[in-house]
């Protein structure tokens, strides 16, 4: 009896040690993204499942949240030391702060080892994440801000896509005179109107000041006259009644629903929304970039497109850096990206991901349209430091409601910029 018990114990011990050996080889990586919409999340789950099947022993834990909340979530994760292995980023200062904090892996050696991977991205999108010769993220979703217009409305009035601001104003004048609201805008979430401001600043503030001096936490001042001049153009639109009422109490999606329902002729939106707009307007839309502003005060870059891609970072402090990079490579493969494009309707930065079968014509045109521009001008809400972005969004609502002037708005930004400079002086 004693022998049988001993044998049983021995067997159990061996089984335990074997299972421990097997689990020691198991690897778990955390993947945080912001694609939580019903049509998006399942695609990422499927890709992860496929990766796990092809890589036995690797487990990818997905965490997802909204576009609005992911920034807070990453801050909490950073504070608690529980950073994901692969996570979402935007370009500019937003990405750079992770680089400074030591939470963004320089992917250059991996790219040198696998040049095919490097060459698989659209060059303009790829370089958006190059900082000091290091490649700290790979671009995943392409994005730029453009005006979307209802083709039927433009045809009705015989409008051509405007090339200059004056042409755009003539269109607005005609529409307004006929009782049609030219632009639909909802700034309830406080970032929509700043997209207008940012695009106008790109046209009015010299590029080296905006993207060189003011996107830098050590030198930011926001005192170029171009800021106020750009905002004055927005005030002009408000004064002429070219926007819908109640901008601040309408959220972005609600504004788009109003737009689909027949209100307004144009909306300033992100290219990554084209699929939704296509459904909402039943294909009845075209697009154009913010036109050139022919004004001596407009000293910014007129030839760039306002926007930048989204990307993914690998955490260098991950216990499984190589696995995380391998997973990212899998995620950005043409096959995975084609799946994401066709099922989640994304705008991919990977060459060959978009085909005529999986992409609406406007988006294919959009991707080609981008090539007409002399590069991209980064989003101001990614380029500026976080507290300046916060002020920009909050005071931006007051400015859109015309409860403060352009000068007050810029003064508020300057005040925050001063604090940022002081905090980063050492």
């Amino acid at each position: 009896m004693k022998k049988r018990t001993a044998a049983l114990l021995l067997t159990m011990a061996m089984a335990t040690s074997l299972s421990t050996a097997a689990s020691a080889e198991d690897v778990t990586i955390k993947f945080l993204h912001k694609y939580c919409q019903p049509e998006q999340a399942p695609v990422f789950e499927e890709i992860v499942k496929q990766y796990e099947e092809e890589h036995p022993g690797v487990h990818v834990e997905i965490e997802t949240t909204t576009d609005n909340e992911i920034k807070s979530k990453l801050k909490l994760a950073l504070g608690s030391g529980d950073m994901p292995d692969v996570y979402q980023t935007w370009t500019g200062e937003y990405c750079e702060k992770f680089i400074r904090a030591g939470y963004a892996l320089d992917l250059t050696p991996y790219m040198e080892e696998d040049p095919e991977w490097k060459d698989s991205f659209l060059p303009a999108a790829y370089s958006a994440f190059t900082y000091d010769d290091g490649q700290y993220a790979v671009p995943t979703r392409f994005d730029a801000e453009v005006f979307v217009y209802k083709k039927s409305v433009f045809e009705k009035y015989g409008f051509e896509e405007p090339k200059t601001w004056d042409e755009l104003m003539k269109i607005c004048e005609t529409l307004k005179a006929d009782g049609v609201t030219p632009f639909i805008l909802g700034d309830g979430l406080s970032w929509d109107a700043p997209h207008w401001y940012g695009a106008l600043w790109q046209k009015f503030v010299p590029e080296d000041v905006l993207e060189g001096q003011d996107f830098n936490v050590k030198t930011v001042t926001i005192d170029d006259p171009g800021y106020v001049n750009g905002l004055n153009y927005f005030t002009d639109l408000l004064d002429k009644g070219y926007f819908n009422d109640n901008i601040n109490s309408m959220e972005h999606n609600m504004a788009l629903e109003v737009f689909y329902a027949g209100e307004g002729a144009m909306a300033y939106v992100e290219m990554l929304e084209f699929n939704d707009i296509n459904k909402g307007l039943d294909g009845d839309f075209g697009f154009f970039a913010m036109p050139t502003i022919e004004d001596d005060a407009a000293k910014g870059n007129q030839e760039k497109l306002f926007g930048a891609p989204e990307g993914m970072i690998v955490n260098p402090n991950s216990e499984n850096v190589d696995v995380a990079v391998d997973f990212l490579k899998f995620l950005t493969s043409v096959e995975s990206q084609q799946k994401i494009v066709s099922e989640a309707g994304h705008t991919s930065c990977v060459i060959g991901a978009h085909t005529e079968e999986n992409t609406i014509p406007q988006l294919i045109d959009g991707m080609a349209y981008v090539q007409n521009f002399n590069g991209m001008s980064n989003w101001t809400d990614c380029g500026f430091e976080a507290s300046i972005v916060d002020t920009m969004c909050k005071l931006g609502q007051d400015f859109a409601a015309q409860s403060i002037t352009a000068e007050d708005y810029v003064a508020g930004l300057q005040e925050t910029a001063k604090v940022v400079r002081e905090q980063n002086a050492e």
Partner: protein
Amino acid sequence: MKKRHITACLFLAPAIIVMLIFMYIPIVQNFYYSLFNWSIYKPGKTFVGLKYFIELFQDKVFWTCLRNNTLYALISLVGQLGVGLVVAAILEAKFMRKHSGFFRTVFFIPSVMSFMVVGLLWQLFFNPNVGPFNGILKAMGMNTANLNILGNPGTAIFGVIFASQWMYFGYMAMLLIIGIQKVPDELYEAAEIDGANALQRFLHITIPNIKEMILVDCIIIVVGSFKLFDEVFIMTNGGPGYASEVISTYLYRTAFRADMMGSASAMAVVLFVITFALSIFQMKISRSGEE
């Protein structure tokens, strides 16, 4: 005796340890952090002393937050406690007792709903484009052309406060009903014999007998008003601009949007001092009575 002490300590130890780790140590740590300039994205901290406290009291937005919190507290005292008291008295009146159960349920239901749902509901209700609020006022002959409750800096906080009153007055009424039910019937009967009418019975019997409960409710409302977060975050996100910002949402924004952790910690200290002082007051009051 000694053994009994040890047993008691052993039973209390887990709770004390959890409280220490998750409450008292973080409170002390938070005060310590408020003396430094630090960021989640940067290693190291720079000592700045009381700089953030001084800046906080010079910050216009912080005063807006304090004003909004105070407004919320004052209006809630009337809207939740005052209305709750009247509703409780009516539901406990003899002529209502038959239907009181139904109305208690109706008034109490909003308070068990998630504010996420209630907030979105009221947000849509007030929306001038799609909500019925402006339409109702227009049908009553009012000019609603420029009426945008949550989108106007002057009215946004009142929209939030109103939604909150709707949600919680039933809860307050329930608490007060419990108090009223403890008042002996003999007192009302004696008053009736003496010729007291309903209002006199309410003023001279009901209120003095539920005084303790009213005071406790007052403190719950006032302390809750300074911890306000969900309502503002969901309905207006503190906007437009900073118009409906309250201390908690401003703290959240300063820490997790602007990444100014030292300043946010200082704000948390001030919030702690306010709520702590009010809680002490509450404890004093609850000890002073019989309940």
